[in-house]
């Protein structure tokens, strides 16, 4: 560098230093209505279609996730009604064998990949920044990309269904049935590529959540003061990071077996069909805890608010969540007890599968102890918590039963298993989910849901659920295997199946009532205050719905229940920029203020990159040349994503 350039640089630095001193920041000099106006101008979404596509506001992205996931819930639910109609009587002729096989594949895949995990992510993406007292998630553009990838993956699967090339290999796609020899055509490829979309999306959202929870918490919110839902999502996001690569790998290997002739699963050429099962279930078992653990977070949130006291034995609950997350990775072989692996190895997985019941059992005690010590109010969210306890524990106990190898060998692949997992997934995840959507509805929309309609819906759902799934335990014991489009008369299966079908329609009615309640309340519900439930966590310290910037000033916390413990004014920190997007990073454990972090501006590039990736993924089903030719536009879109919109230096960094 020559002396002139050095001089220019020095002058530039001085100019920037002077500018920096003049930057407007929140605090004594700037607060109240004027602060609100300027912050809103900085943070609010730009108008128009481009503004809508380009938004990186976590609240917007969270709402999209939730609405999209509920649509997939409805679609998957309709499929289950058709299946139940077919099974209502022996020798049904509502649909034939081939179509039925598509239905259960679509139902399972939609519920697991397009509803359950995304809705948990969506709720987390919406509420976590508010709950931990920050203005944005980490990596908001990545967050946006992850939503679009999820949407495109779901669309691909359902468009394939509309075009009659839906997969029919089951949601678990065992090889060699799903391989090139026994599943010709593109159905299995559609399934495998849907996995790629949703797993890229989920991994991105997981990285976003981990970084947000670890680095963006309010000052004073040490790890031991963090709300239990944040703990649950931290563990879940880490589980996604460790589990999802497994299904990405095995589905990638399946696509390559089918498309370019690799031999991973072909035993004639030194491959192994069981390789699929190990890799799939290494993901598949943690997956169900990825769905369940956020729900335990929901239960903690609701129980605390509606029992008017913090959860009993917070450290025990935290350790229970963490140990469940870790143990979940050591259970997968219990899905393979009938495959003929060495029996002594199986005993380990029986023991581990039973052990995982202990932390969950302890959490249940803690929730019940909170109810015992507190003053429970049984409004709709709390009803769902009670329904959860009554229902989920049955599922957990049927899980203990099938953890035993001799019992599993009779019950595996029968309707007993179908009963078990619906008890734990609907009882254990959907009930708390409906409770939490009711609870956070005022925060998200600014209005209250109808309490009456909510109570009616709860009872129809709770009773309808029992009617649908309890008889399935008997159907399994009476010899009904899974994934059968019909069954013979005279085996005693008529009654349980008929009851299940009737119950299914009750469940559908209840879900419909919930949706109607949501839609009507959105337009005509009672207006909500900032804290209608008088709850303790930070999301209730701002308005309902929150302003685009979440908090006028970043709050400071000194306890686990800040809004209950701060009697007077709420302590806040000051000094963040007002005319550019900025938030605060704190240290990981002690939450000491560390860095002022610019928050990326809205950008269309995540959407464009998702489109490019989508084209890349879909076309690679049809030809391996899509890999180089689809990869290049994706790479260009991602480079444009990172490239700054201006190459001029600014006084303080702006990510635009």
């Amino acid at each position, binding site marked *: 560098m020559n002396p002139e350039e050095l001089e220019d640089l020095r002058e530039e630095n001085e100019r920037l230093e002077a500018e920096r001193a003049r930057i407007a920041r929140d605090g004594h000099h700037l607060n109240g209505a004027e602060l609100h106006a300027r912050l809103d101008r900085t943070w609010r979404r730009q108008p128009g279609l481009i503004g809508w596509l380009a938004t990186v506001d976590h609240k917007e992205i969270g709402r999209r996730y939730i609405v999209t996931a509920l649509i997939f819930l409805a679609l998957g639910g309709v499929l289950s009604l058709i299946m139940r109609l077919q099974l209502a009587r022996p020798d049904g002729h509502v649909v034939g064998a081939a179509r039925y096989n598509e239905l259960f594949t679509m139902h399972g895949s939609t519920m697991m990949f397009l509803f359950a995990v995304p809705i948990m992510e969506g709720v987390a993406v919406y509420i976590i920044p508010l709950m931990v007292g920050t203005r944005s998630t*980490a990596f908001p553009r990545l967050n946006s990309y992850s939503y679009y990838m999820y949407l495109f993956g779901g669309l691909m699967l359902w468009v394939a269904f509309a075009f009659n090339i839906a997969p029919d290999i089951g949601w678990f796609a065992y090889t060699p049935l799903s391989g090139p020899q026994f599943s010709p055509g593109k159905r299995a490829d559609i399934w495998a590529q849907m996995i790629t979309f949703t797993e890229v999306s989920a991994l991105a959202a997981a990285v976003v959540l981990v970084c947000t929870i670890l680095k963006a918490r309010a000052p004073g919110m040490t790890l031991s003061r963090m709300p239990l839902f944040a703990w649950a999502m931290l563990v879940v996001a880490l589980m996604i990071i460790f589990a999802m690569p497994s299904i990405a790998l095995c589905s990638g290997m399946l696509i390559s077996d089918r498309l370019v002739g*690799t031999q991973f699963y072909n035993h004639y*050429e030194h491959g192994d069909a069981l390789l699929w099962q190990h890799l799939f279930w290494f993901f598949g078992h943690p997956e169900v805890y990825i769905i369940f653990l956020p729900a335990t977070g929901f239960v903690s949130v609701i129980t605390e608010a509606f029992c008017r006291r913090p959860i009993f034995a917070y450290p025990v609950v935290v350790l229970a969540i963490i140990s469940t997350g870790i143990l979940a990775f050591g259970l997968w072989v219990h899905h393979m007890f009938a495959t003929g692996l060495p029996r002594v190895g199986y005993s380990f997985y029986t023991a581990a599968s039973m052990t995982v019941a202990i932390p969950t059992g302890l959490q249940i005690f803690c929730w019940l102890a909170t109810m015992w010590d507190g003053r429970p109010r049984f409004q709709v969210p709390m009803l769902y918590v009670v329904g959860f306890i009554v229902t989920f524990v049955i599922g957990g106990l049927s899980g203990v039963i099938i953890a035993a190898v001799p019992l599993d060998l009779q019950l595996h692949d029968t309707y007993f298993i179908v009963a078990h997992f619906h008890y734990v997934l609907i009882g254990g995840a959907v009930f708390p989910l409906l409770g939490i959507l009711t609870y956070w509805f005022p925060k998200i929309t600014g209005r209250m849901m109808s309490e009456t309609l909510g109570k009616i819906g709860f009872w129809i759902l709770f009773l309808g659920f029992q009617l649908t799934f309890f008889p399935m335990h008997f159907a399994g014991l009476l010899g009904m295997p899974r994934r059968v489009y019909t069954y013979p008369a005279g085996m005693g299966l008529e009654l349980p199946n008929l009851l299940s079908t009737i119950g299914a329609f009750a469940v559908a009615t209840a879900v419909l009532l919930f949706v109607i309640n949501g839609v009507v309340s959105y337009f005509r519900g009672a207006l909500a205050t900032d804290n209608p439930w008088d709850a303790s966590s930070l999301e209730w310290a701002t308005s309902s719905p929150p302003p685009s910037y979440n908090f006028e000033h970043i709050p400071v916390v000194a306890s686990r229940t800040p809004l209950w413990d701060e009697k007077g004014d709420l302590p806040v*920190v000051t000094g963040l920029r007002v005319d550019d997007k900025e938030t605060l990073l704190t240290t990981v454990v002690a939450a000491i203020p560390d860095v002022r972090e610019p928050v990326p501006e809205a950008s269309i590039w995540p959407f464009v990159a998702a489109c490019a990736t989508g084209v890349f993924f879909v076309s690679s089903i049809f030809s391996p040349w899509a890999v180089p030719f689809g990869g290049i536009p994706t790479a260009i879109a991602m480079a444009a994503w990172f490239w700054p919109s201006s190459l001029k230096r600014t006084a303080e960094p702006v990510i635009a």
Partner: protein
Amino acid sequence: MIRPVRFTDDLAHLPTHKFGPSSLTWWGIIGYMVVEGGFFALAFAAYFFLMGHEQGWPPEGWAAPDLLWGSLFTIIILLSEIPNTMIKRAAHAYDVQAIRRLMPMIVAAGAVLLIIRGVEFNALNVRWNDNAYGSIIWALLLLHTIHILTDWGDTIVLWALMMTPVGYEGRRLVDTDENALYWRYVWLLWIPIYLMIYWVPRL
């Protein structure tokens, strides 16, 4: 905010960038390193799972991959750590000029490595569709190639950015530091893959 507030500390003095775990992108990169590491760990597990079925590895009738190109690749990628470390140090020292000089070396190294990689594929002595052994070693090599390719792309974009005026911004130097960190990960991960492709079949 609805409740009245009480101002405590003013944080205007805090920096807008820091190196290492204080940087948000550091955590993002670590997150993706864990994702990719997990992906590779499972691929290694699949490799040993398939190997466990065999009497011989490679299976009878196939030769182990030629050592030359893979070993050459390994030597060059390990050598590339020298300019890489220099770049990392320059980033911490806010020495933009040094970074502008050194980054082309990494880009050049990456190009050479990708060319060698192309030759390596041809020297594996088995095709991806011959058998599961061929499939898994092609898969390992392909996954690592994608790793190199994406990091090479990242490095080129970053180099271009460092050549502009914004290269002087503190956050860009943090990016440079983290990019160097990621390059380390790419060659660290190569070592077990190299052993599994080229040496385990020779045991």
